């Protein structure tokens, strides 16, 4: 799922009629069964590629309506929201499409791969279970595009992140280091607790007799040079004589774990020349054997041998579960130019799924991403920031499918219609399983492999418009270093909503300049120190009421805007920063003094119900950083453990962090409200009254169309 889904839903609704044909776009679908072979061929394609386009499909975008992206997101808050999304949702499809310029055919050759991925818990590590969140609307959206959930869950390729692999390896190391120590302890345990009861003692005696009988027979036979008597093997086959590493041994079958422990005890206590071992037999089930050994040194050697073997086995199984991460490792080690479309969230997902936990701050994240992927280019930024391309795009939306159909009409329609290509267009051929084709039906949008293919085509065409001549581009030179692309490399939209761009190589943040004229809404510059977040107010209060209420106290120009985070919370932006602390002080004193004067105070309307809380923007950030996700913001604040009602700003000297202990209570426990208000954009206050006249559907529609125009 891309961030852009709500818009594309609408877009799709209009365009789906053209794509509803039984699409047979040549795409290599990769599942568990053909992963290994696909990986080895992909390795060559990536190594030879000029750039690699990628795309991801996820099980959701936002874990709660208030975590959606807003104009009021400061860059650090924006990062926290992306982090939350990447940590909670799963990636279920990964599209990789390496593009290579073929000088003979004067066209690009691409090998679009569509990986179904699904992380299974394959290693026997205890601790937290693997789990992920599904956003119902996203699942429904994927279903609309015929996403094959069965292929994903039944046959998806699993993976381990680098961090998970390290942990597992460490675990293996410590297991095989500690073993002697642990077994000594467990031995002591047995002596302490179990040999007091008569059945255990009798059982141990019997085992002792049988073992000495076996041993006696063995020694006798050795002296006499004859075979081991098969008669020893009893009817139950509990004791089976076998050869273990060229040594005579008994394999123990059909004992309970308690009995096995007793046998182990007997062996250690009474038989110097027997060793008890637990080895992993065939079919990966563990097998208990007692081996005959001549001396202590041989025993040590044997133990070490077995231990090393087990360790190697364990390490092998860890290596085997790396799975899809091999593809990511390949992309990273080849240092190829990665091309994505509006891909900040995608990169965050890649980081958290295949490298390790996301860093706490955006800065750290950016610098580590840059280490793993030195060259990333975002086609959405490219299209929006370059005037030539903007012209080419004829000011249309820069959503992936739109860009694809505008920039690459000859590809979008298949190369059937050659008469269209009057403008210089880049030729692209698709090769799957050694079969090349330049003729195809359109693929299914929102299938990661096809989206990656579209992204790559858009990029190739954009490069050509920028004046990059692939004919002169030497294959050894990295495309990322091309001077015409240099200014676009490693720029990502931190947030498309407010056009904030981050440079991965420098960490600098800039606001979008060129494209800003395309944006319909001009908002006053947001000063985060002027913002108060208010939540838990009476549910019937709307932005307009809150604005009016506060304006009565501080004057009509005091409040610049009131913005709904969700049904239960608003941002209030004051005109001056000092009003934030004034407001919080006032609110706190009104809460404290429940006298008639405070009841008649204009703010009393806002405080009605006694659950209204307020704090500065920093508290909002704190709440965003929590791993909990309640649907309503007021519930979230409560779940985060906020027990005060007003958090005064640090600078106010008198009562520092006076904590009112009355509990914050959720107002209006209806979880659905957020869905509607989430889409409700910045509140121009005057708009609000018109909103209330519309039905909720109309609001959403109007929002969607507006957004669709923007994107």
């Amino acid at each position, binding site marked *: 799922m891309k961030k852009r889904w709500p818009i594309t839903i609408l877009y799709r609704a209009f365009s789906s009629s053209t794509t509803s044909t039984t699409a047979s776009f040549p795409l290599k679908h990769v599942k568990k069964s053909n992963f290994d072979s696909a990986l080895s061929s992909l390795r060559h394609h990536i190594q030879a590629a000029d750039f690699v386009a990628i795309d991801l499909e996820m099980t959701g975008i936002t874990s709660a309506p208030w975590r959606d992206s807003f104009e009021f997101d400061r860059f650090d808050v924006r990062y926290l929201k992306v982090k939350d999304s990447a940590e909670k949702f799963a990636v279920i499809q990964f599209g990789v499409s390496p593009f290579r310029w073929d000088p003979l055919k004067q066209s690009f050759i691409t090998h679009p791969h569509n990986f179904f991925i699904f992380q299974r818990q394959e290693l026997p590590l205890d601790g937290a279970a693997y789990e992920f969140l599904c956003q119902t609307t996203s699942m429904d959206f994927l279903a609309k595009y015929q996403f094959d959930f069965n292929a994903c869950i039944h046959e998806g390729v699993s993976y381990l992140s680098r961090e998970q692999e390290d942990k597992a390896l460490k675990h293996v190391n410590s297991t095989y280091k500690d073993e002697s120590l642990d077994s000594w302890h467990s031995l002591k345990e047995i002596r302490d607790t179990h040999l007091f009861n008569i059945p255990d003692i009798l059982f141990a005696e019997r085992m002792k007799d049988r073992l000495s009988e076996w041993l006696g027979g063995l020694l006798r036979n050795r002296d006499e040079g004859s075979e081991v008597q098969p008669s020893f093997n009893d009817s139950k086959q509990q004791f089976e004589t076998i050869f273990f590493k060229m040594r005579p041994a008994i394999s123990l079958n059909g004992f309970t774990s308690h009995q096995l422990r007793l046998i182990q005890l007997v062996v250690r206590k009474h038989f110097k020349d027997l060793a008890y071992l637990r080895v992993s037999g065939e079919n990966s089930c563990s097998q208990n054997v007692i081996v005959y050994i001549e001396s202590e040194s041989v025993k040590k050697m044997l133990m070490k041998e077995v231990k090393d073997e087990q360790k190697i086995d364990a390490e092998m199984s860890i290596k085997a579960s790396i799975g899809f991460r091999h593809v990511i490792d390949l992309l990273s080690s080849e240092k190829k130019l990665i091309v994505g479309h509006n891909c900040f969230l995608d990169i965050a997902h890649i980081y958290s799924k295949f490298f390790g936990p996301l860093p706490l701050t955006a800065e750290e994240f950016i610098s580590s991403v840059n280490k793993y992927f030195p060259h990333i280019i975002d086609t959405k930024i490219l299209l929006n920031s370059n005037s030539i391309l903007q012209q080419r795009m004829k000011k249309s939306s820069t959503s992936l499918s739109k860009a694809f159909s505008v920039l690459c009409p000859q590809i979008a329609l298949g190369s059937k219609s050659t008469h269209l290509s009057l403008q210089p267009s880049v030729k692209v051929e698709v090769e799957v399983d050694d079969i090349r084709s330049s003729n195809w039906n359109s693929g299914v949008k929102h299938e990661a492999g096809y989206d990656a293919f579209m992204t790559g085509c858009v990029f190739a065409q954009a490069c050509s418009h920028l004046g990059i001549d692939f004919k002169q581009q030497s294959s050894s030179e990295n495309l990322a270093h091309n001077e015409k692309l240099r200014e676009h490399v490693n720029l990502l939209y931190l947030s498309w909503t407010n056009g904030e761009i981050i440079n991965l190589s420098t960490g600098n943040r800039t606001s979008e300049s060129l494209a800003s004229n395309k944006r319909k809404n001009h908002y006053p510059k947001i000063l985060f120190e002027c913002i108060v977040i208010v939540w838990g107010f009476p549910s019937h209060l709307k932005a307009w009421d809150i604005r009016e209420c506060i304006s009565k106290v501080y004057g009509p120009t005091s409040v610049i805007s009131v913005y709904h985070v969700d049904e239960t919370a608003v941002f209030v932006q004051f005109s001056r920063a000092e009003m934030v602390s004034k407001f919080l002080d006032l609110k706190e004193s009104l809460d404290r003094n429940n006298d008639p004067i405070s009841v008649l105070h204009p703010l009393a309307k806002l405080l009605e119900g006694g659950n209204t809380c307020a704090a500065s923007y920093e508290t909002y950030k704190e709440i965003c950083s929590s791993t909990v996700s309640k649907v309503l913001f007021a519930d979230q604040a409560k779940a985060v453990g906020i027990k005060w009602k007003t958090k005064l700003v640090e600078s106010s000297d008198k009562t520092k962090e006076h904590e009112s202990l009355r509990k914050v209570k959720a107002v209006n426990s209806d979880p659905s409200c*957020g869905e509607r208000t989430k889409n409700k954009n910045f509140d121009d206050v005057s708009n609000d009254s018109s909103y209330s006249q519309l039905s909720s559907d109309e609001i959403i529609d109007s929002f969607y169309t507006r957004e669709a125009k923007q994107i």
Partner: protein
Amino acid sequence: MVPKFKPSPLRIRSFCTKTVQQNPHHWPIKQITKTNFNESLSEIKNHISSSDFIAVSLQNTGSFSSPWHRVSTFDTPETAYLKAKFAAERFQILQFAICPFKLQASKVIAYPYNFHLFPRDELKMGMPSYSFTCQTSYLTAMAKEGFDFNTCIYDGISYLSEAQESTVKVRMGNPMAVDHATKSSSSPALSVADTVFIERVRSRVKHWKNACTDSDIKTEAALVTSLRKIVLGGEQFGSRPSMTIDVCSERQVQLVLKMLEDFSDVLVPLIIPAKGGGTQAVRAVLTSSDEDKHLLKRELQTFEFEQNKRVRGFREVIDLISASQKPIVAHNSLNDFTFIHSKFLAPLPPNMNEFICSLRLAFPQVIDVNYLLKDIGPVKKMTNISATIAYLKNRFFAPIEMEIPNQANENEGKIHGHNVVKICQLFGKLCSILKITPDAIESSDDFLASAINRYANIFYSLPGSSQEPTNEEIRGWTNDKRKVSCEDVVFLWGFRERISAGILKNMLQGSHEVFAEAFNVRMVDRSCAIVVFGKPGLSNTFKNVMNSKEVSGPLREMVSDGLKAAGYETYQRVCSSGLWESALADALDKALASHNCLSEAAYETKQSEIYLSNELINLAEL
């Protein structure tokens, strides 16, 4: 009481019918998705109303995320409920199997259905759920059974809970007929403003009404008609003319309604709810006659009915079960009914008592087969139904014949939902062993009621004891029946990871004199262990020692290495404040930290928060 054994024709028939299936894999369980839901409803309704019991079984997307989140033997009913609540709020039901069944002698006649559910946001309001969590191991296990996720997500039946439905009704802004409850009888004294308001509205209504009735006679130019419409504010409601009267307050609503009573011969008032609750406007609909008026009222009713049905989705079935008031048989009732409550009734209340009260309103009798099992003997709690059935087969002679007259949908993929039939089978066996026989059922309803009542509504019980547990007890972790007071339990953490209970016990043994007496240690998860003292009072001594400066010797060494201890009340606080960290040690640390924080703020701990004294648990072998 003479058992009335009837040589039932059913019994004879059962020999020749081929619907008797003993092999679970051939049980014809009807699979229901969005496509065949509506057509199956009436059939299900009939089976429910003619059944004696209804068995239910759920397939969820997960149960517990960390080892300690699992309801365990050291939980009180309260903490067990909180754990179940946490799971029910996060995970999703993908399959809901119900099976109305009858018990006749040694035969169970069952009508199993398996519903595929998916919470689709059909109204674009973030309902029934914004998101849900999946555990990969659960999905993988379902995949192994051949579960079709595409069918589930594409074709699953959606639903809304009762609570959600009522908010949706308001949100959709459908006009509501005025019932007598909303008409307030007491009319307060009218102020001048009120009178002005009423008169203004009255004259508008009068004009409009006259104009409408006039225009029936006169033939006017289209332009004039539309102009008139604009001027008079008239609209159409369906095929009837109507007029919207805007109101600013609930008081004005009352005034308008009262005024409209004067026109009650032809006008029907409707209330248009505002989006955020309250009333946005009153709409008066003009009807041509008394007959027409009734017709309109009926139309409104059917419209509402149809719409509600669409919105409710699968909850229709829950409502049918609830309305039948039949006893419900489940296998893991605490888990299943926290899910049912949170998805189909309302958000889960904060504690067990409220939950049980709220649930009882919808389902008066819930019987957990696990609880029936306990009456048979000291059986371990069996999580696997098939194993339990096999166990009973070996110990008792109680053959149960399964008859499933359903015709499963032909040519459909895998059949799912076998558990629900197994529950029926197990219940039949248990009833026959416990002599809650069908004969008794036929002879006296009262007898049945009391027999069943004895087993109903026990969601969490101690093994080996048949009385309902109280919050002062926690049960042991195996079949040992010794009871231990919660007071004697201490949680220990902050030792090195991957330590075994045995080693920890050894380490503790020599560390302090409180450990000279008998005590037991058990690991809760990798990070935390519980210690149970055999002698009352020692746990307090130990906790005091841990918190004092006098701690010395090996124990001091361990404390310096990070060892921490807390009583059972801290664990209860962890559960009640929702500190579901993945390691219990982290959760306990957090609980202690927030507690200290509160006490610093001179926040007095309520007396009731200190649960010590007489809480009991059963203790296991250690």
